[in-house]
């Protein structure tokens, strides 16, 4: 039987980061990936000769190489990757768009947002500045109980519209809870998005994944693709072996699962019955529509920003819609709009809306295809009201639904931001099993990778 010091389940960004960290210090480590390629939620596929990215709109936590203590640079040091050789493109500018023509633009320079808040909410600028100071000093990684970000922001800002506008992009990019957000999560996201900001790595997500995989293998790490896990053989409250769908058993000293807590509980369940996972299944899922448009059409629509976060609903509420999709709110992303990217013959427009997993799950195959078309069309109609009509110019379109997300990421209910119950410590009822990734409270690509690194540091390096 093959035997490893550590087995990591999932070759997404948290799994790769954990693997690199372990391999770097000489541990014998194996990553088991269910699919044929790495990346998990942030991966890629090919259609009509184009490489299309999944997940990634932008990376958060931008920091120049000189800022040693910034999360991005700490991450690179921990993985022993050169930050200086890692080329990045910063965002141009993004906008939060609400009813009554309320719009706040922001970039990787906080002064833009500060000026916008002063212009649109002159009575609240002092309170906004105090909030920024508070967040600057705040350590969100201390293990505190869940606290309502809305309540806290009511006290701090005393302006419903402003607080909702600030919450909206942070919720869309990382909140697993409906209606409200944990204040610590809000702070993590505020730092990542407004204080640090958006960027893209040079090249595409495949280049980034290849960099990580090459590094991992060069350090002696092993990865197996198309190797789905079936369950754990448990002895004395420890994972003894990891059993694959193929029937093969792999002995593991320790196991790190990055596939989400509901799926991890299934691996732990005895053969007598399924695990109780209801409380850990998130409800926030999304639909994403990728549109490829001809380059010359760029000038015909509002396309000079990187990301537009829009909400037209009154009152504003971040939640799972009753219908299949809520097109009244969403994220419009132009992945070609980052500094110093050369324009190509085509450009991309990606649109994300909250969507209802149960509704999508209920469709029969034919109905499912029809509904994808129908909702992509409704989305284009609504988004067209904001940026101008593009519907007839789409050269290629693809749609991911909550069920697509569930299939490719293993996240129960397609809830990409994971379980509403966060396991900040990463421990489980089994002594040698740890979880990393979105169910831990870290968010985004940098967050997912830091989660993998932190769990290895804490539970494997310090304890052994």
């Amino acid at each position, binding site marked *: 039987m093959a035997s490893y010091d550590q087995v990591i389940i999932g070759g997404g960004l948290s799994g790769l980061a954990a693997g690199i960290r372990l391999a770097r*210090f000489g541990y014998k480590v194996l990553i088991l990936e269910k699919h044929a390629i790495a990346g998990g939620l942030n991966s890629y596929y090919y259609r009509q000769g184009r490489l299309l990215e999944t997940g990634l709109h932008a990376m958060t936590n931008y920091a120049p190489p000189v800022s040693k203590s910034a999360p991005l640079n*700490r991450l690179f040091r*921990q993985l022993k990757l*050169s930050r200086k050789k890692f080329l990045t493109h910063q965002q141009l500018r993004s906008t939060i768009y609400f009813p009554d023509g309320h719009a706040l633009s922001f970039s990787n320079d906080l002064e833009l947002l500060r000026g916008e808040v002063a212009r649109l909410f002159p009575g609240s600028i002092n309170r906004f500045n105090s909030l920024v100071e508070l967040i600057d000093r705040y350590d969100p990684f201390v293990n505190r109980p869940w606290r309502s970000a809305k309540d806290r922001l009511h006290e701090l800002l005393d302006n419903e519209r402003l607080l909702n506008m600030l919450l909206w992009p942070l919720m869309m990019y990382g909140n697993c809870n409906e209606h409200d957000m944990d204040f610590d999560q809000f702070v993590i996201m505020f730092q990542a998005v407004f204080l640090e900001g958006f960027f893209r790595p040079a090249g595409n997500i495949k280049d980034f994944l290849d960099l990580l995989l090459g590094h991992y293998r060069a350090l002696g790490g092993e990865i197996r693709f198309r190797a789905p896990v079936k369950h754990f053989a448990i002895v004395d409250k420890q994972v003894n072996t990891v059993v694959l769908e193929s029937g093969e058993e792999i002995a593991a000293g320790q196991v790190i699962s990055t596939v989400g807590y509901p799926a991890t509980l299934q691996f732990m369940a005895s053969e007598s019955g399924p695990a109780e996972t209801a409380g850990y299944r998130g409800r926030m899922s999304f639909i994403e529509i990728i549109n490829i448009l001809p380059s010359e059409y760029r000038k015909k629509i509002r396309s000079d920003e990187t990301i537009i976060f829009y909400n037209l609903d009154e009152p504003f509420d971040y939640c799972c819609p009753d219908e299949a999709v809520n097109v009244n709110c969403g994220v419009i992303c132009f992945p070609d709009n980052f500094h110093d990217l050369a324009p190509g013959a085509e450009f991309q427009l990606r649109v994300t809306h909250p969507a209802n997993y149960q509704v999508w799950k209920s469709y029969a195959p034919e109905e499912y295809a029809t509904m994808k078309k129908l909702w992509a069309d409704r989305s284009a109609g609504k988004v067209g009201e904001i940026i101008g009509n593009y519907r007839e110019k789409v050269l290629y379109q693809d749609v991911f639904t909550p069920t697509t997300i569930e299939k490719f990421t293993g996240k129960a209910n397609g809830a990409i931001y994971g379980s509403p119950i966060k396991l900040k410590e990463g421990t489980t009822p089994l002594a040698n099993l740890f979880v990393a990734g979105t169910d831990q409270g870290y968010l985004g690509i940098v967050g997912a990778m830091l989660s993998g690194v932190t769990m290895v*540091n804490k539970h494997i*390096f*310090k304890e052994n």
Partner: protein
Amino acid sequence: MTRDEIKDVILEIIQDIDEDGEVENLNADEPLRDQLDLDSMDFLDIVMELRKRYQLQIPEGDYPELASLASCVNYLEPRLKDV
């Protein structure tokens, strides 16, 4: 290993952790963290690198002994004397 050899090993490890670290002008008695702008995650790498190279187990309670270059050398000298 001699004290000088241990010191060189520590400097080499730090250089390896931080591509911009300027190790030439370190004050041996001042905390490394303050002089190099390292955090606790970087610091763990020194411990891990020593474990990898010399199979040396440093319990978490002893981490403060590695605070400065001089205290590192003092702590490691008896532990690496046969290396």
